[in-house]
């Protein structure tokens, strides 16, 4: 790890990672930590070593739901949630996003805001569904018609 120490790109939150004591409270309470091999604690640990690239490539980043459970419970007051967001941005700027990550949702979302200022859930849902078939397509089609009928899609 030591060899891979690279210069940190200074952002507002990342220097905070050094005060982390690795108590694991963030991972314990994280609803999605065990979906990936990396927990938030490990991502912070990478940052403590200065391994920004490894941290940015962690699959955990894109799993984070920004629910802030880690942030409000951290005994050291590390803003873990915003570190994850910074890392997402760094990963994109540096081109470190792993190929298996599908960021089409993010792109569509941003384009929509830039074009219209607002989000249409209908368009957003359709656009992402086109990129990746949902896990329960039949239920989703039924739901689509139900929502339409109830005036919830416009």
């Amino acid at each position, binding site marked *: 790890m030591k060899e891979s120490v690279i210069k940190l790109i200074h952002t507002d939150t990342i220097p905070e990672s050094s005060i982390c004591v690795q108590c694991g409270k963030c991972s314990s309470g994280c609803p*999605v930590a065990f979906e990936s091999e990396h927990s938030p604690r490990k991502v912070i640990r990478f940052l403590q070593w200065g391994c920004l690239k490894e941290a940015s490539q962690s699959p955990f980043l894109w799993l984070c739901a920004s629910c802030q459970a880690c942030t409000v419970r951290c005994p050291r007051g590390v803003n873990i949630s915003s570190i994850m967001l910074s890392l997402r941005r760094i990963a*994109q700027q540096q081109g470190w996003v792993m190929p298996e990550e599908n960021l089409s949702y993010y792109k569509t979302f941003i384009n929509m805001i830039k074009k219209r200022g607002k989000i249409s859930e209908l368009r957003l849902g359709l656009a992402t569904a086109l990129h990746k078939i949902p896990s329960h397509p039949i239920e989703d089609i039924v739901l689509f018609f139900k929502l339409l009928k109830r005036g919830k899609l416009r």
Partner: protein
Amino acid sequence: MNYLYYPGCSLKGAAIDYDESFQAVASSLGIEIKEMKDWECCGATVAKSVDEGLSETLPLSTLKNAEKEEKDLLMLCPSCYVNHLQVSLKAKENETFFEQYSFNQVPEVKQLLEVLAFDVGAEEIKKKIIKPLKGIKVLPYYGCLTVRPFRLGGKESYENPKVMEKIIEATGAQPVFFPYKVDCCGGTLLLSKEKTALKLCASILKQAKKLSPDCIVVACPLCHFMLDAKQRTIERELKEKIDLPVLYITQLLGLALGIDYKKLGIQRLVTSPKRFLQKIGV
């Protein structure tokens, strides 16, 4: 009590019933609102993940608007609330930022629950209840961003908030203690990591079912979408019948205030509230 009401994307889309029921309840509780016309999306968590600048400029335009109107901002969607509050706090604390955007008085940003519980007050609500929901077990579910990270303006606890319980008690119904009330429903991940999102939501519905309430009450459009619209999909995943109606807190309140259920948008719920409505005699 005069607020500038910022609806946000969901409230004008899949959560149209939240918007309808809120407007109905607001007028009968005497909350004066002025709806913003030209509002912009808050950027949700997506803008923060892609473009930090954008995630600030989007809420800024709303804040500047509210400053012009000299009113406090009222938000229903917790995600919008957190994003706006974050920027407004930055404007209050960071002098250069304050000056950069030539603020005079940074408007307060409030979430609906904060207004109902602290500005109106449970006592006041109780006085206006026409149809007390006696004998109804209501399970409150807060989701993550209502209390995190701002604890409704610092007035609530992170782990065991009680505002919804107070409102539920005011309607005459009985709140159920839900240990999972501040857990994440996975809503933000629905379009990017669908499987994970469904897993999170499933665990919440499963735990809620164990307590066998008459309905679940939420204050977040995304939580509502996950628990209500996606309930069928989750039943499929769990191979278990859930069948729990999910209402917005405003809808529950509206029913107790004696407002017609059509005005509250209850007919728009995906999971049928029929049995629940029968139980309260609507």
